[in-house]
């Protein structure tokens, strides 16, 4: 059998020092905010399509592709009550969306797994925590984007749009392409209503949407999160001050996320540096009626950015 070596990043001295420093800074921050670290196994207990696999004798082993799922398997099995704040750090192995992306990616992140009464508090805490991240890694000029996949999921559910079409609609809306949303809904009796809704999301004008009545709750959640973030940002005028953007058309991941979503960007970055949001559907699937939200910071992408644009960092650890 031929040995395949996809793009795994080797880190040399400077990169390793930078990577370890960031990992430590962020872990300390999370610990200081009450997040307890867990380390789920590098080997997943189940397999899914697209997982990076190894051969072990007669067996196939799936490598950890995502911390959220790895943690959910672990926590749902080991805990009777929602464990609250948890954090993690380590590598995940994913088939890249683009050939230049590495297969092995380093991440640090947090999850807040609670009962229904703590959902709002957890969302607010997470957005405040994400806003602290750029200062920890010395990155300036960052933007945090808030979205809500729920603003699309509910109308698609009401109109009974098939999953494949719904996925296409979400993709094109997230890419700000209403003309493509129109194409994707060819033949659907709900086409005119959903395209009108897409236009409203792009304009940030939910009140004019044909589904405005059904979306009040989801929209209010997003606005609450925005208010908390604005209050946190207004106090910070330093070099690491973050710009906040709300994009109601950011509905990416609508099949997974059920509430507000967060993304961390920097100028010149090809990809988001951090991402997350509320996903209340995962734990019930594992038999636990828990609510969950979190975000992860993609250290591999931060390392790439520091190599390509060191001027974006106030200090680059070496």
């Amino acid at each position, binding site marked *: 059998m031929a040995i395949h070596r996809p793009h795994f990043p080797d880190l040399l001295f400077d990169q390793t020092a930078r990577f370890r420093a960031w990992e430590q800074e962020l872990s300390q921050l999370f610990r200081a905010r009450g997040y307890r670290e867990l380390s789920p196994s590098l080997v997943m207990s189940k397999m899914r399509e697209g997982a990076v696999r190894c051969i072990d004798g007669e067996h196939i082993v799936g490598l950890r592709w995502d911390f959220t799922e790895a943690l959910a398997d672990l926590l749902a099995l080991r805990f009777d009550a929602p464990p609250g704040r948890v954090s993690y750090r380590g590598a995940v192995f994913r088939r890249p*969306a*683009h050939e*230049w992306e590495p297969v092995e990616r380093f991440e640090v992140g947090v999850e807040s797994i609670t009962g229904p009464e703590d959902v709002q508090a957890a969302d607010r805490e997470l957005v405040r925590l994400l806003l602290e991240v750029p200062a920890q890694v010395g990155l300036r*000029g960052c*933007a945090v*984007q808030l979205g809500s996949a729920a603003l699309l999921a509910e109308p698609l559910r009401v109109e009974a749009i098939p999953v494949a079409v719904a996925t296409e609609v979400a993709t*094109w809306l997230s*890419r*700000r*392409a209403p*003309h*493509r949303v129109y194409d994707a809904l060819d033949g659907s009796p709900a086409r005119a209503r959903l395209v009108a809704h897409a236009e409203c999301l792009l304009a940030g004008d939910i009140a004019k949407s044909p589904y405005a009545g059904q979306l009040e709750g989801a929209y209010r959640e997003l606005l609450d999160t925005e208010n908390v973030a604005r209050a946190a940002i207004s106090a910070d005028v330093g070099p690491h001050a973050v710009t906040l*953007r709300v994009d109601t058309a950011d509905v990416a991941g609508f099949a997974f996320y059920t509430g507000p979503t967060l993304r961390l*960007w*920097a*100028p*010149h*970055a*090809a*990809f*988001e540096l951090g991402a997350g949001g509320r996903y209340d559907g995962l734990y019930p699937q594992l038999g636990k009626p828990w609510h969950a939200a979190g975000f992860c910071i993609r250290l591999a992408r931060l390392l790439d950015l520091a190599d390509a644009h060191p001027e974006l960092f106030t200090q680059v650890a070496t």
Partner: protein
Amino acid sequence: MTLLIAYPKGRLGDELLEKIGVSALGPAVDPGRALKVPAREPGVELVFLKGADLVEYVARNVAALGVVGSDALDEKDVDVLELADLGLGRCRLSVSAPVGVSLGDLAKKKHLRLATKFVRRTQRWLDRQGITAELVPLTSSIELAPALGLADAIVDLVQTGRTLVENGLLEIECITQVSGRLIAARGAYLADPRRIDHLASLIVRASA
């Protein structure tokens, strides 16, 4: 900070430059064979690239904006913002076969071979139609493939259909309409949405 806009080479690029050439986002100097020139708008530079490459430059946030055919965009399927359908370079991505051969004839073939440059888009269409076929990837002169026995039919861009007729082929099924799209790097849009929206509106207005 200088911002890069990528314009396509070829027919779509010619059509675009005809419309946009005298606007603020036209080249400030005659590009000749240069691949990078300043635009009239201060702080903006233009690069001229082939479709598939152009998508990569925007996807990696090297160029903040770009104009590219939806054919090239669909083949890459990357996470870039598609801000407008400019309606330029309109044509169709179609299945064409030798005269007298219908889509039904092709679907009944035990081993259908389709020559195309557009492998991803063709495969999606085949999946939707429930047809299986061997895709023969070619990059140019696709129309020759059926006549020389390399494929039973082709999937290629059709504008007037004259090249097809001259090579004994007929368009039998339109897979999708193709036109020039204005795309933006997600990172660039997030970093400065006002500037990107302003430049995008200049391009949309000039190319109308």
